[in-house]
């Protein structure tokens, strides 16, 4: 359990409590994970969040680090088709906390109303014995608000528009999750005109995550994507873009209307200088932390993403930590859809 989940995600920070929970979690992994213990043999309880030990995200591409019995634990994998996939071992207790976290974050953004959910993916991916793609885990963040869930990709990877039509048949309001590039290429470019007209009466909360590389290559920017999505849906529709990592499942960093990413109070974002790895207020590597992962020591991860903390109150009204996501560290391995 995490006491922090009792508070609204963007209320006043409670860093002393977060530090306590992260110290306890570090101890949990040190006691159960020999590899982690070898990496951090001299660990002493952290007195500040910056002192919580971290693992570089690249470690999860090479090692399946399990803190406990991983025999039948689910494993999340980054979904990239290029590069090496990251593997993160899940734990049932952590899974419940992660689901509660993403539910609280999304409720703040799109409300808690229950609606049908359309997912641009295959249901079969949920039942993979080997590993669950991170994009499915990302889609599952929206699922707690679903009266029914419709996976609408056919086996060839194209949208089965008849399934979309079924999903909206009786609905005036739906939620839709897709990885960012699919929203454009599968949803917008190939949608039949008849369905486009039908969708015009449906309010849609579009929730998406993932990299922009494919869209940048065809010169589609965020404003163009948002405009196209909202043009094909009823007034009151919304677009929510969130950033996250497979290693930090359950923690979503949505882009607010003022253009910043916000960290819920049960997570921490530290920016580290790429050369010295010391905390900095300038642009640097993002280190992400949260007190939930118990299956693998991914509670404190140094990412390959560049960002910058932003001081002061956000015009959007959310309190707590906010940052700008700048992009990947040059020469970092391409991770495809890993950024959920």
């Amino acid at each position, binding site marked *: 359990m995490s006491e922090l989940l009792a508070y609204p995600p963007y209320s006043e920070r409670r860093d002393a409590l977060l530090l306590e929970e992260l110290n306890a979690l570090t101890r949990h992994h040190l006691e159960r994970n020999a590899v982690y213990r070898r990496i951090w043999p001299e660990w002493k309880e952290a007195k500040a969040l910056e002192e919580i030990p971290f693992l570089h995200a690249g470690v999860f591409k090479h090692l399946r680090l399990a803190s406990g019995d991983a025999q*039948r634990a*689910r494993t999340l994998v980054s979904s990239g088709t290029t590069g090496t996939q990251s593997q993160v071992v899940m734990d049932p207790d952590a*899974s419940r906390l992660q689901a509660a976290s993403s539910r609280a974050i999304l409720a703040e953004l799109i409300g808690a109303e229950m609606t049908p959910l359309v997912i641009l993916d295959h249901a079969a991916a*949920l*039942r993979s014995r080997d590993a*669950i793609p991170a994009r499915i885990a990302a889609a599952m963040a929206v*699922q707690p608000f679903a009266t029914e*869930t419709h*996976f609408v990709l056919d086996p060839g990877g194209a949208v089965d528009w008849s399934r979309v039509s079924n999903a909206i048949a009786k609905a005036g309001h739906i939620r839709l999750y897709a990885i960012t590039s699919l929203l454009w290429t599968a949803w917008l470019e190939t949608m039949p005109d008849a369905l486009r007209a039908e969708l015009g009466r449906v309010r849609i909360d579009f929730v998406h995550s993932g990299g922009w590389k494919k869209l940048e290559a065809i010169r589609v920017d965020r404003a163009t994507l948002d405009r196209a999505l909202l043009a094909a849906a009823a007034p009151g529709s919304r677009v929510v873009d969130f950033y996250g990592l497979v290693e930090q499942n359950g923690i979503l960093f949505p882009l607010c209307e003022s253009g910043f990413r916000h960290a819920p109070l049960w997570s921490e974002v530290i920016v580290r200088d790429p050369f010295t790895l010391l905390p900095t207020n300038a642009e640097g590597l993002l280190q992400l932390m949260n007190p939930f992962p118990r299956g693998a020591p991914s509670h404190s991860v140094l990412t390959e993403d560049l960002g910058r903390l932003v001081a002061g109150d956000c015009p959007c009204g959310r309190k707590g930590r906010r940052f700008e996501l700048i992009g990947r560290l040059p020469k970092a391995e391409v991770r495809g859809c890993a950024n959920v």
Partner: protein
Amino acid sequence: MSNAEKLRQLVLDVFLLDPAEFRFDLTRDAIDTWDSLGVVSLSVGIHETFGYSMTPDEAAGLGGIGDLVALLDRNGISIDAQS
């Protein structure tokens, strides 16, 4: 394939069980992988396999495979748990 066999296969897949572990009286507490992903996967699988959409409350309220069989039965999908 009988409905019982379809349900058995679905439960094995969703909860990553070995075939020898399956029983129709398995409870939720006895299945480590009956987590939030498992619940979603089960709901979607039931819809795809039997055409029945469980409500979120129904899915969250299941105490085990027996409850699932009873729920399907109440909705006109007969599972012969003896087969």
